[in-house]
C-alpha cells in the first residue's frame, strides 16, 4: 500500500465486552502500532469508534484486545477527537478507566 494512503493502526485493551460503544465520544487509551523504536507508545484520548464500513473508510484502524490480552478478530475504525494528559489525575492502585472517564468529563 502507498505510504500516503496507509492508515494508522492503534490498539486498545478493554475490561469487558461492551466497553466500546459506537455513536458516542469516549475516553480511551490507545497504543501506537507504528513500526520502529517507539512502537506501543501509549496515548490518552477522547475518540469516536465505528464498525460501519462507510465510517471506517475515513478512520484509523483500531485493534481490540481483552483484559487478558486476547486479540479480537473484529477491527474497528477510530477517530481521535482530542488528547487527554499522559499524567492522568487519579488515585494510584485504583481503576485507570474510571480516571480516564473523569478526565474526559472534566475536559482535562
Amino acid at each position, binding site marked *: 500500500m502507498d505510504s500516503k494512503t496507509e492508515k494508522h493502526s492503534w490498539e486498545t485493551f478493554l475490561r469487558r465486552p461492551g466497553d466500546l460503544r459506537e455513536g458516542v465520544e469516549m475516553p480511551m487509551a490507545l497504543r501506537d502500532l507504528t513500526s520502529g523504536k517507539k*512502537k*506501543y*507508545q*501509549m496515548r490518552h484520548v477522547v475518540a469516536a469508534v465505528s464498525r460501519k464500513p462507510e465510517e471506517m473508510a475515513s478512520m484509523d484502524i483500531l485493534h481490540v484486545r481483552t483484559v487478558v490480552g486476547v486479540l479480537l478478530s473484529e477491527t474497528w475504525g477510530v477517530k481521535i477527537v482530542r488528547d487527554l494528559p*499522559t499524567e492522568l*489525575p487519579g488515585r494510584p492502585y485504583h481503576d*485507570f478507566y474510571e480516571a480516564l472517564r473523569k478526565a474526559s468529563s472534566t475536559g482535562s
Partner: protein
Amino acid sequence: MFNDTRDFIEALRSSGDLHEIEKEVHWDLELGAVSRLACEKDGPALWFKRITDYPSDITAFVNPMATWRRVAVTFGLPADSSLKEIYAEYEKREGRLIPPVTAKAGPCKDVIKLGKDIDIYDLPAPMLHDGDGGRYLGTWDMAVSRDPETNWVNWGMYRFMVYDSRHLTGFPRPTSHLGKVFQDYYVSRNKPMPMALVIGADPISHFTASATYHIGGEEAALAGGLRGAPVELVRCETNDVLVPSNSEIVVECEVLPNCVGLEGPYGEYPGYRTGEMGNGILCRVTAITHRKNPILAVDATGYRDDSSTITALTGAIAIKRRLERHGLPVLDVNVPREGAVHTAVIGVKYGGKQVAKEILETLTSRRALLSKIFLVDPDVDVYDLGKAFHAFSTKCHPAHGIHVIHYEGRANTLTPCYSQGERALQKGATALYDCTWPGEWSREWEVPVKATFDTIFPDSMKQKILSEWKSYGFKD
C-alpha cells in the same frame, strides 16, 4: 563473589550455563519467544548481542537465574549442587548482615541523560509476550525506595512497563513493601515518591530484591551478607536514592501520588496472563544513567521463570523463619519450582488440626501469596515431590484434612484461579492439606505402618540386604 552482571556472565560462561546469540533478534516478540522456549527447556541464560532498531553496543542478558544450576553459581557453589544443598547454603548465609558502603562515583554513571535527553526508548525494552499491555523494561530489576519516616530502604523486584518516552507504569502490588510505603506516606501527603529502577546490578543484589524479606529489613545489608562483602552504592542524580554503583542501567523516577496510567496485562510468574490491568502506579522518569555498552537484564517471565527458583527459595526460608518465630513445629519448607510460588510443602515435627490452623493463620495474616499448603510429617522429604504427593494422596483426609481460610484485601491478585471480581477486591483463600497423622491416634494401634523398605523391616534385615545387595545379582 560477583561485583556486577559482567562477572556473573563470565562465571556462567565458564560453567557452561550461558548461550550467546550473535544473530540479530527483534525486541518485538522474537527475543521473548526465544527466551521463553529456552526457559521451558531448562536451557542456559541467554545473551543477545544484536537487537533490531538498536546499536550493537547495547545488549540483553536474559533469564539470569531460571535454573538451580545458575542459582548455585550465584552462590559460588558447584553448578550441579542439589536443591537441598542450595537451600542449606542460603539458610546458612541469610542470618548475616553486612551494611552497604557508599562511593562518590561508579560505572553506572558512565552515561548520564537528563532533561530533554531522556528517552526510555533508547533502551531495548522487549515486548516479551504477544498481548502484553506493553514493553516491559523492568523484569529483572530492583526498585529502590525509601520510607522517610524510618529511613528504611526497600529493594524489590517488580514489573515496570514503558508508557512513553518519559513515563513508566508499574505493578508493585499494593501489599508489597514499596506499595505500602508509597500509599501510607507519599499518597497520603500527595508527594511524589523518589525511586530508582536498577537493571543489571550484581546477581546477589537482584536475588535479595526478589526475596521475601520482612518489613524494615534492609535488602542491601542482606545482599552484603550473602555476598560476604558490602554492596557499593552511589547516589542518584536527581534524588537521594542510593543504587549499586556497578549497575548496568539506572532509571531514576518519581512515582506520582495523584496520577495513574494503564499497566498490564502481563504474562506473569504464575505462568499465566491474568486480567490484572489498570490498577498500578505511574512514574515520571527524571534521569537515565548507564554503563558504557550497557547490558539490559531481562526475566522472560512465565512458567518456570527466575522467580520459580529464587523467589521460591527465599520464600521458603521466610516461611520457615516466620513459623519458628510463632513457635510452630516446623522442620523444613520447600516452595517447589513447578508451584509458581503458590504452593509450599511444609514439614513439621508433628501435625494435627490445631497446628494446621495456626500455620494457615500465620501465613495469611498480612499478605497471602500462597494459595496451597501441604503439611507433611518428618518422614517425608519436602524436597521430594513424589513423596509429598504420596503423603497427600494417602494421608490427607478428604473430609477432615483440608482447612481453608478466606480473606479480603490481601490476596495475591495474580493467582490465575481467582475471578476478575475477586482480583478487584484482593479477595482469595488458602487451603492447607493436612498430610500428617492425627495427633490423637495411637502410634501402636491406629497409625498405619508405612510399607517402604526404610519403615517396614527390622534394622538387622535392612543392614543385611544393603550390605549383600550385589550378591542378589544387582549392579547398583
